[in-house]
């Protein structure tokens, strides 16, 4: 049986300084420090003890592979909602807490946006030189520089990695049909010679390999980073780097939901009757991004052809049957699995009949609708800078400037539930224990990371509490225990007895 698909989203935001020092590392630090100091009023740092991003799921390290550097000197905080908020390279990054299902992941993704908005306000209030910070939730600067929005999924260690690669690649190549955030033009050599007015995906053209360890150079469609942040004998964390950052809630829900579902089928070794292996997944992901008919034939490994939409219909129909046969408990409560399947079917139908009907659900459709309307009014061509400006400003997170916020897109979570996710952890994963300890005893939590908390109880030595199972430490498991402890020392004593 497939295991619970605990998931989360890490978003690297674009950051721009207006009228000030353009150094993005300094700007990201100002942004996050302002939030930690003035809004959250909390400074618990990150514990780097278990960071090993160079471990390769294939069990070997390819020659010339460059594992990412772990930058321990930059701002790095843990929030009471269980998230990590920090400076990653030259970007502010929000890593959501572990979520039990795709809808919860949407809620915490939105909480991340709300935290960034508050951070901008706090940072601007602290800057007295006339400068201010602007943060964008997108994935490229339009000049060939890309930054990521990564997803993580809990997987059973027993599932062979080669089966994951084979099973998930067709989905990663084609899910951009409804997960793409849209982009004006192109910025890599892949589309040189052909003129590209608009692409479905921000990220697709930056992918150069099918499988690999890197995340910044020669980006692979399937990333092999093997850093489970959990018991490595039982679990794997599939680190997904191929996606776009979404603003439309339905797109985020489908991105996490359909991927969780396909991964569950891979764990249970359920696959389509016809092989969906592409002859050249890298070429295919580029081609799908620029094909607004979704019907361009893609070469399959077995010599046949398939369309991107055909591959999605195939995956959907296997998933529907899988759900009927085995149920979707691994995706959370029953209504979550049902909603994933129903919405998946709806977007595929919409793409097939009239994609413009999806402008409230799918980012690239919403953005394209906006661009076409703008073009209609001003008579400008696709290469007019105003088109790129509309594209960029779609992703501006300032409520006063965001173009996305002006669209009537469909909401899946209430503003009240987002506001609570800004400060409260999810109740159904170990993030609850992390967040609650930080809430209750901020002065006693010295550092935290995904799989442990380190308490400073005022007496040597520091006490580390491991959390090697993402499904333990939930409110159901430990709320009564925490409520009955009058001090962190009592909690640590009772946990270790």
């Amino acid at each position, binding site marked *: 049986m497939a295991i619970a698909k605990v998931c989360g989203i890490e978003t*690297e935001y*674009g*950051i*721009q300084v207006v009228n000030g020092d353009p150094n*993005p590392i300094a700007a990201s630090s100002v942004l996050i420090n302002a939030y930690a100091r003035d809004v959250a009023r909390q400074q618990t740092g990150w514990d780097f003890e278990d960071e090993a991003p160079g471990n390769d799921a294939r069990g070997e390290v390819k020659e010339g592979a460059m594992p*990412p550097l772990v930058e321990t000197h930059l701002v790095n905080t843990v929030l009471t909602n269980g998230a990590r908020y920090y400076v*990653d*390279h*030259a*970007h502010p990054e929000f890593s959501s807490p572990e979520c039990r299902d795709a809808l919860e992941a949407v809620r915490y993704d939105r909480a991340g946006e709300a935290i960034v908005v508050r951070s901008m306000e706090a940072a601007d209030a602290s800057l007295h030189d006339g400068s201010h910070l602007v943060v*964008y939730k997108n994935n*490229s*600067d*339009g*000049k060939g*520089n*890309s*930054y*990521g929005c*990564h997803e993580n999924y809990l997987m059973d260690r027993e599932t062979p990695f080669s089966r994951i690669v084979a099973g998930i690649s067709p989905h990663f190549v084609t899910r951009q049909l409804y997960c793409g955030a849209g982009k004006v033009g192109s910025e890599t050599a892949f589309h040189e010679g052909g003129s590209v007015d608009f692409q479905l995906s921000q990220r697709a053209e930056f992918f150069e390999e099918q499988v690999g360890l890197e*995340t*910044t150079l020669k*980006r692979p469609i399937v990333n092999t980073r093997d850093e489970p942040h959990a018991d490595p004998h039982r679990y794997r964390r599939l680190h997904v*780097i191929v996606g776009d950052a979404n603003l439309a809630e339905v797109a985020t829900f489908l991105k996490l939901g359909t991927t969780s579902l396909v991964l569950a089928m891979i764990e249970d070794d359920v696959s389509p009757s016809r092989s969906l292996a592409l002859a050249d997944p890298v070429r295919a992901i580029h081609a799908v991004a620029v094909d607004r008919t979704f019907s361009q034939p893609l070469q399959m490994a077995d010599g046949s052809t398939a369309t991107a939409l055909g591959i999605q*219909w195939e995956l*959907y*129909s296997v998933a*529907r049957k899988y759900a009927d046969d085995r149920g979707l408990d691994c995706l959370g409560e029953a209504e979550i699995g049902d909603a994933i399947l129903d919405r998946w*079917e*709806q977007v*595929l*139908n*919409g793409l*097939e*009949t*009239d994609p413009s*009907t999806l402008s409230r659900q799918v980012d690239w459709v919403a953005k394209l609708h*906006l661009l076409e*309307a*703008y073009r209609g*009014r001003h008579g400008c061509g696709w290469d*007019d*800078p*105003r088109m*790129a*400006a*509309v594209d*960029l*400003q779609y992703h501006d997170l300032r409520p*006063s*400037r965001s*173009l996305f916020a*002006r*669209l009537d897109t469909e909401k899946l979570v209430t503003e009240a539930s987002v506001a609570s996710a800004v400060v409260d952890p999810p109740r159904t994963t170990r993030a609850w224990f992390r967040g609650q300890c930080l809430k209750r005893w901020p002065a006693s939590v010295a550092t935290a990371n995904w799989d442990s908390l380190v308490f400073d109880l005022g007496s040597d030595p520091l006490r580390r509490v491991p959390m090697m199972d993402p499904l333990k430490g939930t409110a159901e498991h430990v709320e009564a225990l925490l409520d009955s402890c009058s001090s962190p020392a009592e909690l640590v004593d009772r946990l270790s007895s």
Partner: protein
Amino acid sequence: MAERELKKKQATERTDEEVDEVPASSAAGEKLKAELDDLLDEIDEVLEDNAEEFVRNYVQKGGE
């Protein structure tokens, strides 16, 4: 597969019906157009003044 075809077909019919309704009512069409005009007015208002400079100045370092 047959079941999938059926579902697709039903959903397609549903969508077609919805699309048919829009031109049937010119009032609804007018409303959509007015909403789009309002949206475009708002975009003209908030879009950065110098689009060329705004886009040129947005330079990021690669991340991840």
